[in-house]
């Protein structure tokens, strides 16, 4: 909790993006989360990602449900569209909004409670529909807002702040997203923005459902010895499977000379995701290979991070349903409501 607003000054040495906007123009209201909350770092990374991609604030829609994580959208891009919905129902809201206006950038922020308990079904179906959005799951393993009970993502053996170990099998959102067919699956860590920001940028530019599980420690209820979602544990067990860079369209590619395992994947809009140091037996565009790698590293007790799987084919919900390419919001009233005669003609077809 902070009582003074963030001073309205900025470093004159920090320039503006292509729109002439400064990084601070992408901020929201000041956070009321606990000091040191990982979610605030995710916020900062989101701000930087939008700023660097020069996305106009009014072309962004930010959605959330309930929980500490659900407060996050209030803290970035104040001038974006936003909807804070019912617990666990953010995917349905995002799906509906995307159906009506396909031209916005959708970012949904959820938590392990919102996505893996009450909203698990919603989460799965958003993946199935391949909604064109970036879905960020701020994962801290506890219900922080209700004072630190284990959530569905808590690992077996992980201890609560009182020292009680968790005995229930966790739901792993990354494994889930891989098996359900998500077209972009990644994991980041709130304490490593160098990795998180390129992931967010790639996720925003990905066409289709982009999922990023972000380990975001709860500094109040789950940052102690015995926790498997603490800053220290994540740093000591983090394993970056494939470091990636996001290369936006139009920018000159000035990569250092070839270092063996480099793979570049061009996205639907011409921007590029560049994988650095890809292990020889691993193909990030092959779902089975990604899953195998992920599971084997996880069994060794490592927290696997990086962009794990990417399907660059560029299909989404609209393509699957052959919807109109014009957002509904831009259609004329006549086109949207062609009148009862047209309706009757349509009905006639089904007789």
């Amino acid at each position, binding site marked *: *909790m*902070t*009582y*003074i*607003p*963030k*001073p*309205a*000054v*900025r*470093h004159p*040495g*920090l320039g503006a993006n292509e729109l002439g906007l400064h*990084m*601070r123009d992408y901020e929201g209201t000041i*956070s009321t989360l*606990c*000091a*040191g*909350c*990982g979610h*605030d*770092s995710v*916020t*900062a990374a989101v701000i930087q990602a939008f700023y660097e991609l020069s996305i106009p604030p009014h072309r962004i829609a930010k959605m959330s449900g309930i929980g500490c994580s659900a407060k996050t959208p209030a803290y970035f891009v104040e001038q974006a569209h936003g909807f804070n919905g019912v617990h666990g129902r953010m995917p349905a809201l995002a799906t509906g909004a995307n159906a009506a206006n396909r031209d916005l950038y959708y970012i949904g922020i959820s938590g392990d409670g919102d996505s893996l308990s009450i909203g698990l079904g919603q989460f799965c179906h958003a993946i199935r529909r391949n909604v064109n959005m970036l879905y960020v799951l701020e994962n801290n393993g506890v219900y922080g807002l209700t004072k630190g009970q284990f959530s569905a993502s808590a690992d077996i053996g992980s201890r609560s702040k009182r020292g009680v170990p968790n005995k229930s099998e966790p739901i792993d959102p990354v494994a889930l997203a891989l098996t359900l067919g998500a077209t972009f699956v990644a994991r980041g860590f*709130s*304490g490593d*923005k160098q990795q998180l920001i390129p992931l967010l940028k790639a996720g925003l530019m990905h066409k289709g459902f982009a999922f990023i599980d972000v380990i975001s*420690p709860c*500094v*109040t209820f789950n*940052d102690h010895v015995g926790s498997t979602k603490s*800053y*220290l544990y994540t*740093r000591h067990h983090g394993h970056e499977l494939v470091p990636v860079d996001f290369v936006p369209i139009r920018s000159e590619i000035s990569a250092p000379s070839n270092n063996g395992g480099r793979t570049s994947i061009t996205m639907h809009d011409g921007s590029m995701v560049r994988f650095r140091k890809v292990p020889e037996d691993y193909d990030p565009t092959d779902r089975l290979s990604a899953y195998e790698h992920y599971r084997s590293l996880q069994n060794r007790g490592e927290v696997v991070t990086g962009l794990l799987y990417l399907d660059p084919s560029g299909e989404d919900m609209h393509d699957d349903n052959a919807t109109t390419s014009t957002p509904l919001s831009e259609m004329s009233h006549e086109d949207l409501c062609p009148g009862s005669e047209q309706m009757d003609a349509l009905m006639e077809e089904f007789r």
Partner: protein
Amino acid sequence: MQPTDVSNPDYYHKVVDCQWGCPAHTNVPEYIRLIANGRYTDSYWLNRSSNVFPGILGRTCDRPCEPACRRTRIDGKPVAICRLKRVAADLRDPTDDRLPEIPVVKNGKRIALVGAGPASLTVCNDLMPLGYECVIFEALDRPGGLMRTNIPAFRLPWQVLDEEIDMILDMGVKVHYSTRIESMKALLEEGYDAVFVGTGAPKGKELNIPGRQEAADNIHIGIEWLESVHFGHVDSIGERVLVIGVGNTAMDCCRSSKRLGGVDIKVMARKSRPYFKASPWELEDAEEELVEIVENYSPKRFVLEDGKLVGMEFELVSWHEDEESGRLKATVHGTEILPCDDVILAIGQDNAFPWIERDIGIEFNHWEMPEVDRTTFMTSREGIFVGGDAAWGPENIIWAVEHGHQAAISIHNYCQGLSLTEDRPPQDHNLISAKMGMHEWAYSNDYNPSARQKMQHVELVRRFEELSIEVEMGFDAEQTAREVERCLNCDIQTHFEAKLCIECDACIDICPVHCLTITVNGDEPDLRSRLMAPAENLTQDLMVSEGLPQTGRVMVKDEDLCVHCGLCAERCPTAAWDMRKFELLIPYAGQEAACPSQV
């Protein structure tokens, strides 16, 4: 980089740009906070502990603090530090006397001081409470030196001057007025334990061009002319006046001329505005009084008709940098004669020591200036000290005060048989947490976007009625309330304990000016290139922490633009960041490092 050693008083002192920039190291943020709390008297005495003349300096200081002020780098204009000092001086309780007690029984040491200017007065201020007997010899019949004779009354009222000088003289200083010392040798023979020379730089520079001798009646030397105006020997001047030179003395000359009957007054500058020596605010004040400032006119000769000055010829010049020497060179484009009735020369001042014999052990350099040690202020003859403008040429009042403090330490050590260098008391500092509660700090940490308050002036017509009408009216209550909040409280330091940090990035995310970075260590140029925001101001330090516990990276803070809002400390879950009040402890004669806020 090596971890920054914040236990060295210089590190945090340097962050307080104003205090670091002030020769006397006045604790500016603290005195501004005291004003903000309405504690004008406390603020005045805190000021006085270091700068001795807050009322005088609050009107006349050259303000080295203001160009240094961090606020300039944030929104372009420094805090009006100097004018706030005047608020404290004007509104203090004059009955609240906190001067030190003067011992009735003296310590038996007698000090002679030549000249009753700010340097000598400061020496007396520091030595009288220790039991010294101080004897001043002053050539004029009043004390104050150039503070009195060279600063016109419309900038510095005499009562302010008298009051603050009397505070010192009333300690029991003996002053021999109208007594010009003509021989150092003779003075030494009187058996003083030490002699302090604070004679200033009393000789105005000459301009030896054709016509100077012939037109002498209407050509005046700036500082001498100001002195004559002060003593009432001069009470009028011609309608058309040319002031040669564009320093602060020139500003006082042109504005005084305006009050003595001058109508068409021009300040003639050889160079262009960026090279002017006058402070920007003094230029502004002169131009407000419709004085014309003419650039790139180089004096050539005085023009006489029937033996009387009628004008002055100038060369019209332009300046370019010489590629080899890097110095400015002039190109002459023609000449012009400007008609005038009087000319005032304000092109600089010299020191003169015809009264010091060259065979008594004081070494003089080839500019005929005595060799004075930069730390001890002692000449090559033991027991003779020099300070103020007399030491190394014209500076300003606040430098003279600092010279006085340092010379007093030396004189005390000298008289007590201590080493002037090894036994000099060192500076020290206090560092105390400013945390008062969850989100409460012992200072106003919110950033206030107000613009610098503009000084109100007496209206133009009225101010010329009388020479002694003070032009600046001082800040009113509302202006003061706004201006104090502009101060960024740079003395409330962001203090970092590396071992507590969990690298959650909260501080980095919240910092409004992106001055914090956690990164792998490197050398300074490398680090400066890798920070959240470019760290291009090399005069501002980087604070580098010890290796952080979880990853071994380091916390780096670029001090340049920190607004000391304390949000890093508020957002820190482990209190690795804390806001701590830094208080510089400055030693004065006969003291260990003193604690000025406990006045």
